[in-house]
């Protein structure tokens, strides 16, 4: 176990090293940070001086070594835009993103398992067909469109009047198809301070309200995928011999479905799920932009727009780290669910 973790630590370091080299190598294509720091009418001589002060004229290797030596001491440099250490900037934006991802994950788990299992057990029921239809739509609509539609319906509100308003049934139907709006359309509101840089939306009803629309749109990409995955796996498991034997033996259906079948269904789901949760962190860029959610995704997009290279490099390294961590956790959990898997790779 310890050997496994140490091995993973080396993986993490290697991943971060490779990412930092790549990020550094492409920085010339990310634009000129000086351009973003000064007004348009500032003369070239001033710009040249600033460039020299920031060490941007040094050769690639010199710049990289300077960065790497500092990074080894946990100093990742100063953000050009925020004028603060990049690690501090990221620490301030990380909790917002993690809360958003946690909420979306919660929605995915709570919805995909029952829906997936149900539509596998009753593949022909109209409700199953309905869920499958919805999930096809969910997969094919891009997340920013989902987000904008959600904002229009639940934040701004729509008033449709396709039915005659002078009849009571018409008024009633009009009200049914129209929405009031009123959900918060952007930002986190007033999150409550927990500790350090962590402000939470989980602690108050009003805070949770701010999470609803962003979490739904972030979940909307992964949710259909998981429903279909669980359904497909479950269908396959239900065909297998041991389920048939269990049925023949007269074990209660509920026990077969939720104990024997579900456990085997979840194995591949956990593997995919772990990787996908890492991806969710990346997907937050779109969701956070539309909802102006002040997390890492929004910060990253801003950093790219303003050529804030130190912040871009640090962000990429931290996302790489998050991927390594989630994958490690997945492997650990996998070992718990499926005892035949040995983490250290020794034969059982």
């Amino acid at each position, binding site marked *: 176990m310890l050997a496994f973790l140490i091995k993973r630590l080396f993986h993490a370091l290697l991943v971060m090293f490779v990412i930092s080299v790549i990020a550094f190598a492409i920085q010339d*294509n*990310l*634009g*000129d940070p000086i*351009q*973003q*720091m*000064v*007004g*348009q*009418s*500032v*003369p*070239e*001589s*001033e710009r040249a*001086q*600033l460039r020299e*002060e*920031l060490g941007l004229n040094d050769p690639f290797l010199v710049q990289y070594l300077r960065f790497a030596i500092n990074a080894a001491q946990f100093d990742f440099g*100063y953000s*050009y835009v*925020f*004028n*603060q250490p990049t690690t501090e900037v990221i620490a*301030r934006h990380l909790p917002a993103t993690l809360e958003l991802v946690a909420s979306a994950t919660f929605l995915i788990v*709570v*919805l995909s398992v*029952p*829906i997936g*299992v149900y539509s596998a057990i009753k593949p022909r029921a109209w409700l199953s067909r309905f869920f499958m239809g919805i999930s096809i739509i969910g997969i094919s609509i891009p997340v920013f469109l989902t987000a*904008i539609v959600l*904002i*229009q319906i*639940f*934040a*701004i*509100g729509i008033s449709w009047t396709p039915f005659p308003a002078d009849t009571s049934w018409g008024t009633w139907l009009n009200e049914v198809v129209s929405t009031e*709006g*009123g*959900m*918060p*359309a*952007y*930002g986190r509101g007033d999150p409550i301070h927990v500790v350090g840089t962590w402000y939470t939306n989980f602690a108050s009803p*009003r805070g*949770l*309200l701010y999470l*609803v629309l962003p979490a739904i749109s972030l979940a909307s990409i992964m949710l259909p995928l998981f429903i279909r995955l669980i359904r497909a796996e479950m269908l396959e498991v239900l065909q297998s011999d041991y389920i048939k034997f269990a049925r023949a033996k007269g074990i209660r259906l509920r026990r077969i479905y939720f104990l024997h079948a579900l456990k085997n269904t979840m194995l591949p789901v956990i593997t995919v799920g772990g990787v996908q949760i890492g991806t969710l962190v990346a997907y937050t860029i779109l969701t956070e*932009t*539309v*909802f*102006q959610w*002040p997390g890492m995704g*929004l*910060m990253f997009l*801003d950093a790219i*727009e*303003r*050529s804030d290279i130190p912040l871009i490099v640090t962000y990429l390294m931290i996302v790489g780290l998050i991927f390594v961590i989630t994958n490690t956790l997945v492997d650990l959990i996998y070992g718990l669910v499926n005892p035949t898997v040995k983490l250290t790779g020794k034969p059982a």
Partner: protein
Amino acid sequence: MNFNKTVMAAVIGATMAGAVALPAAAQSDDVTSLRMAYDADPVSLDIHEQLSGGILQLSHMTFDPLVRWTQDLDFEPRLASDWEQVDDTTLRMTLREDVSFHSGNTFTAEDVVWTVDRLKRSPDFKAIFEPISRVTAVDEHTVEFETEKPYPLLLNLATYIFPMDREFYTGTDEDGDPKDEIVKNGNSYASTHVSGTGPFTVSERQQGVRVEFERNTNYWDEASPGNVDRIELTPISENATRVAALLSEDVDFIAPVPPNDLERVREDENANLVTMSGTRIILFHMNQERVEAFQDPQVRKAFAYAINQEGIADRLMKGFATPAAQFSPEGYAGHVPDLELRYDLEKAKTLMADAGYEDGFEITMMAPNNRYVNDAKIAQAVSAMLARINVDVDLKTLPKAQYWGEYDDRAADMMMIGWHADTEDSANFHQYLTECPDSESGGGQYNAGNYCNPEVDELVSQANLEIDQDKRAEMLQEVEQTLYDEAAFVPLHWQDLAWASASHIEIEPILNVMNFPYLGDLVINDE
């Protein structure tokens, strides 16, 4: 099975309940507050760190200039109550006496002297303040500005002088750094602490998330009708979200309003939309160094005749632009009312034929795709229009972060640029965009056309020594006329400005073409 249904019912129920039971935004009775959303928040609290729209907007909230622009581009006294031209090179300003800074310190002429000295150290502002050679405090409330040579734009410069609290910014901070240092990358005292004379103080700031302002209770301008006690500024960079925030009443005031949403905002009965013709000119340069044909004025004219500015302004910009035939918008000294839009395809074809380019030629074009309103689309439209005079355009559009590097390298035959004159003066356009490029003097820094006419340069330098504003305007108009006759560049339009607010907020009186809303004077009526 039952378990399944229960879970699902609970989830659906919870979602519905969330959508229905929404507490209204809390607002207490005696505090008038404004929640506004801009596309970005100020990068620093140090108003000398960067010369940008965001910083100037902040300056007008937390500081006051000596004089400021009115909606008609006249000067309005602020901290300077009166001024006179003593001789050709000296301007004397009398300052208000009843003014104090947020810190409690009294505002005097020494603060003005100190502030101008600091401006002359700021990389962003020093070029603009170059003409001022000496500032002296004559007495406690009189200050004199001296220039080496006669300089007609001293009052324009005075709109950039927001006196800072000398005492507050003197000394060293806890790290031992001087409090008045200007740091571009890294933390400085002035970038996180502020003491001005302005209508608002900064009470809380989370960069990139929000800034909160409180009314300055000791504000000197008691004649100001402004009644806003609190302002909460949130940056919302995504256009659609910013509009949605206004329409869903999450914020009361937004800027800018994207052209695609103008109709939607105008039709909303709870929203109040204000648009103005702006002063930022959008144009294309034709690089004479890269393309020989552009050295022929006939070819340049043919290009100018081939482009339908009105079509772009109407269709692409949805009326959100004023078609232009010159640099200077109306109200500027150099504006020539007679210069007409050129679009005439037949004439363009004749000119091309006369110049011997009937069969056209190939050029490259570059434009940014996230800097100006609809910039990439405009470039596409222009290249389509040029195809009609047989010019084959290879167009590349880039994000602004990458575009300016290419621009500095003059990487394409035609390049787009938008320009706003920091001095609100016609000469500034020429100095940066069409003056003979000279890397030593820094002239023509953005002249990607390499257009060079020493006579025009001479005329502009003379105009910049001319104190008589009428004579000066005549000279600047001659400059515009020459640039038009020689088709030095292809003008497209002045980009309009748009703001929107909730309907009970009277934003119209506080807005102006410079896009510095005077929020101190904002009046919010009862709903």
